[in-house]
């Protein structure tokens, strides 16, 4: 456990160091830049609120990926499930008009269902035909993207009349999430979802089986766990989380389905899960970390003239370095342990 945390932090540290080198080459001050990043994302309640709101889709798609990876199935369909969740929430949101206490849960349920259904297609194909969910979810991403794009093209079936860019009509006001003080309600929803998933994964019998199956499927099977059924359920849940992310973005940000919604979050969920090594709590933390990076980036540009795109490079470097160092570190530790054993057995035989 401590080893995991250490290697994760080491990875980030090295990556930040490499970023600093790049900045120095460009003739800038790393501390000034990093300082600006921190101040702009976490400096005061205002900024913190924005950062947290931006963290919602990151954390939820991250949890979607982490949950799946940690339990066995490889779900790379977050982009597609995100869109389907957004679509479902939008569809219901424009078809029905109810007061908020009813509307909000309804839209959330729709978003969950949309994402779960899309993941369910992949789960079904795996279950019935043993088709690798890895590839299926990837392919379904593109299908979802193209499908939703078609729906909202100008004069398309779901397009808003008279719109100048591809987008759907706005959802009813009852479904729009406002703020409590500075902080948007979607943050609360995300927190509840994260807590719920954490609880299920770590404190229920089902979560136990998922964990063990993710570590050693054969052992779980021999112990009597219904591994295949569990894989299916996890896929659905994972899809639901990504769908929720999409739905919340519609409900709290755009209020409608617009072109390219969620595109910039497409792979971030997987990225966060990879850096967090599929641990749920770490996923939440890294989600917030990357949200801070991305939120601060825009303002950082104004203050320090470093382009916000620098963040994307930094993110990629963080992923590569943290994963490589993790593997390298564990290989190193294994070798040290082996050497220690050799020494012991050599001594024992004398």
């Amino acid at each position, binding site marked *: 456990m401590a080893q995991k945390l250490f290697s994760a932090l080491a990875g980030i540290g090295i990556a930040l160091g490499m970023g600093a080198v790049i900045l120095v080459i*460009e003739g800038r001050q790393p501390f000034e830049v990093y300082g600006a990043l921190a101040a702009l994302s976490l400096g005061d309640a205002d900024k913190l609120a924005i950062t947290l709101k931006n963290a919602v889709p990151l954390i939820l798609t991250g949890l979607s990926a982490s949950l799946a990876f940690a339990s066995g199935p490889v779900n790379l369909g977050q982009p597609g499930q995100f869109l389907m969740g957004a679509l479902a929430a939008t569809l219901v949101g424009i078809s029905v008009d109810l007061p908020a206490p009813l509307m909000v849960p309804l839209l959330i349920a729709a978003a969950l269902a949309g994402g779960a259904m899309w993941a369910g297609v992949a789960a079904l*194909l795996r279950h019935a*035909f*043993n*088709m*690798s969910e890895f*590839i*299926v979810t*990837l*392919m*379904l991403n*593109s*299908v979802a993207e*193209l*499908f939703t*794009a*078609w729906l909202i*093209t100008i004069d*398309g079936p779901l397009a808003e009349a008279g719109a100048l860019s591809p987008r759907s009509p706005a959802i009813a006001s009852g479904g729009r999430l406002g703020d409590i003080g500075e902080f948007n309600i979607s943050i609360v929803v995300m927190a509840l979802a994260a807590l719920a998933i954490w609880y299920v994964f770590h404190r229920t019998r089902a979560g136990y089986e998922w964990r063990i199956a993710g570590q050693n499927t*054969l052992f779980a*099977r021999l112990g009597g766990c219904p591994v295949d059924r569990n894989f299916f359920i996890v896929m659905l849940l994972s899809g639901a989380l990504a769908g929720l992310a999409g739905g919340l973005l519609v409900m709290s940000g755009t209020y409608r389905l617009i072109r390219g919604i969620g595109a910039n979050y497409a*792979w971030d969920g*997987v*990225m966060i899960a*990879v850096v967090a090594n599929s641990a749920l709590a770490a996923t939440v933390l890294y989600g917030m970390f990357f949200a801070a990076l991305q939120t601060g980036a825009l303002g950082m540009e104004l203050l320090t003239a470093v*382009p916000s*795109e*620098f*963040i*994307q*490079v*930094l*993110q*990629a*470097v963080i*992923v*590569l370095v943290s*994963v*490589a160092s993790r*593997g*390298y570190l564990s*290989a190193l530790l294994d070798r040290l342990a082996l050497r220690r054993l050799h020494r012991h057995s050599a001594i024992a035989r004398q």
Partner: protein
Amino acid sequence: MRIVIGLLNGMLAGATPVLLAALGGAFTFYAGVFNIAMEGMLLVGAFCAALGSFFSGSWMIGVLCAVAGALLLSLLFILFAIALKTDEFVTGIALNLFASGATTYLLRQLFGVRGAFTDAGIQAVPRVEIPLVSQIPLAGEVLSGQNLIVYAAALAALGCAWLIFRTPFGLRLRAAGYNAASLESSGVRPARVRVAALLICGVLCGLGGAFLSLGYVRLFAEGMSAGRGWIALAAVILVNGNPWGVALIALLFGLADGMGLFAQGLGVPAQFTGMLPYIATLIALFVYARRKRRARLGQSV
């Protein structure tokens, strides 16, 4: 008739980058490397091509830069996935992210623009008119006058097929994918073969990227590879890496590209024709999984 000629020309143009990337992917596929970084290699290639061409005023330098850029990504892949034994899938994802971020960042830094960079100073790769062929009525309009890289891609397909099926290198390449332990016991280290495959993939993807930015257009746009690397991956999987099969699929994709515009004129939404490659991959996967299941009957988990 005009329409057909237009379609065929469009098909060749659309097929070329996919073909090159897929040929590169074929090498890594045969070698047993799980390589999903073609998308990133294409993007980096496109960027470096525009960069090189602009700063040197020569398209040849541009193409060389494209290859160099994509090779850089290959080297990173080799460093992480082969030397450090990082998971190949994660490495691919990270490299794609890196390519996307770096090209966007450098676009800002070096050219001071966002979104796309276009300038008269960028030298495009020229078209080639073949003297006698160009005079053949109708067919001549398709067979001659294509961009240089289109012809290069065709030659590359031939060359790759020869390399893979007729040389000792190719024999060892496929052996590394079929049974690396057997290759090792024959005295050849699979890692070396895999490194070679990744380098070749870099060269080919670099060429493909150069076509994207210096072929029929003269610009670099963010995300220019637009999923062609993923389509190349699908193509490789669909035909199990066979270069001829890959060429065929690339042409089909190119055709779908051209048909898309045509069909839009007929009223079919481009998005649906765009879905074809992905659905085709699903079908192929279905067939593949069925075949595997039949072979596994009777064996334990």
